[in-house]
């Protein structure tokens, strides 16, 4: 018997982090800069929600406002930190030598492993919007790694496209997890078969409408389903854009 939950957009945690506020050593840049973060799972001061889903611990829907808005260079271990850029331009800098700009459709996976630092920066007036996902690794203190990819929405129209995980063409993860993107330009039914009954899928509606497991999800709503042999995602009218995160539960 499948289990599920629905998380509405307005039920998520919310933080507005000012570059001049108490966490200014973390958020830097332009004095008027600020980051808005909607958290699907407990993170930072938001501790009233779910602890996570499977191996996922952080799912942040974030926007960086004003040029120079950034998370200053800061250290990590172990977590696999992934970003999926939706709008604007993200400058990602890490201590594996990566320093690059990512735009809509671009994504990266930074496995901090035995240690690495990163900075996330918007250098432009246009807000930068991205989804940040953190997963636990399957081993502690792995050699750190970084890889980037690009999701081509035109090529990926009306199907489920693997971005991260063990599928061909996807960036490998040191975890039993997969991330896919589903974009559709109208109503359609899309079947997702999790790896096993011990896996679950967290579906986040970036835009549009999605019907899943008896629920109707709108923009920024999400659902988790686990214990199902197959999950059917039905997209609504117009454009729909979904991020699907499969993880062992």
């Amino acid at each position, binding site marked *: 018997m499948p289990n599920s939950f629905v998380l509405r957009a307005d039920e998520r945690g919310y933080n507005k982090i000012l570059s001049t506020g108490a966490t200014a050593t973390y958020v830097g840049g332009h004095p008027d800069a600020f980051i808005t973060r909607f958290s699907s799972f*407990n*993170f*930072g001061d938001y*501790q009233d929600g779910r*602890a996570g889903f499977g191996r996922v*611990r952080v799912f942040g829907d974030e926007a960086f406002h004003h040029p120079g808005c950034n998370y200053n260079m*800061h*250290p*990590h*271990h*172990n*977590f696999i930190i992934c970003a999926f850029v939706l709008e604007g331009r993200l400058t990602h800098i890490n201590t594996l030598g990566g320093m690059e700009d990512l735009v809509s459709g671009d994504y990266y996976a930074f496995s*901090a*492993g*035995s*240690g690495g630092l990163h900075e996330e920066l918007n250098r432009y007036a246009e807000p930068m919007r991205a989804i940040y996902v953190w997963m*636990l*690794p*399957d*081993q*502690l*203190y*792995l*050699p750190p790694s970084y890889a980037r990819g690009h999701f081509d929405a035109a090529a990926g129209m009306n199907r489920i496209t693997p971005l991260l995980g063990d599928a061909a063409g996807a960036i490998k993860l040191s975890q039993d997890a997969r991330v896919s993107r589903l974009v559709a330009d109208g109503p359609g039914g899309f079947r997702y078969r999790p790896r096993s009954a011990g896996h679950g899928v967290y579906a986040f509606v970036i835009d549009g409408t999605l019907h899943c497991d008896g629920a109707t999800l709108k923009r920024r709503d999400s659902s988790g389903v686990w214990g199902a042999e197959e999950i059917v995602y039905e997209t609504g009218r117009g454009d729909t854009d979904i991020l699907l995160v499969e993880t062992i539960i």
Partner: protein
Amino acid sequence: MTGDALKRWICLGCGFSYDEALGLPEHGLPPGTRWRDIADDWVCPDCGTPKARFEMIEIPYADGQPRAAA
């Protein structure tokens, strides 16, 4: 008894881990220091996340780890 085996904890703010077997000698916690014996107001030495926002984990170490100074 497995119930009293030495455990590992991870900081949910940054991924820093605390291993009871190793302690953190450079931060005044000798090897074998139990998580429950660390002060409640202790924070992550890397990011300042409070002790309450660590999670107990059963994730194995990668080959060759842990090194003395990860």
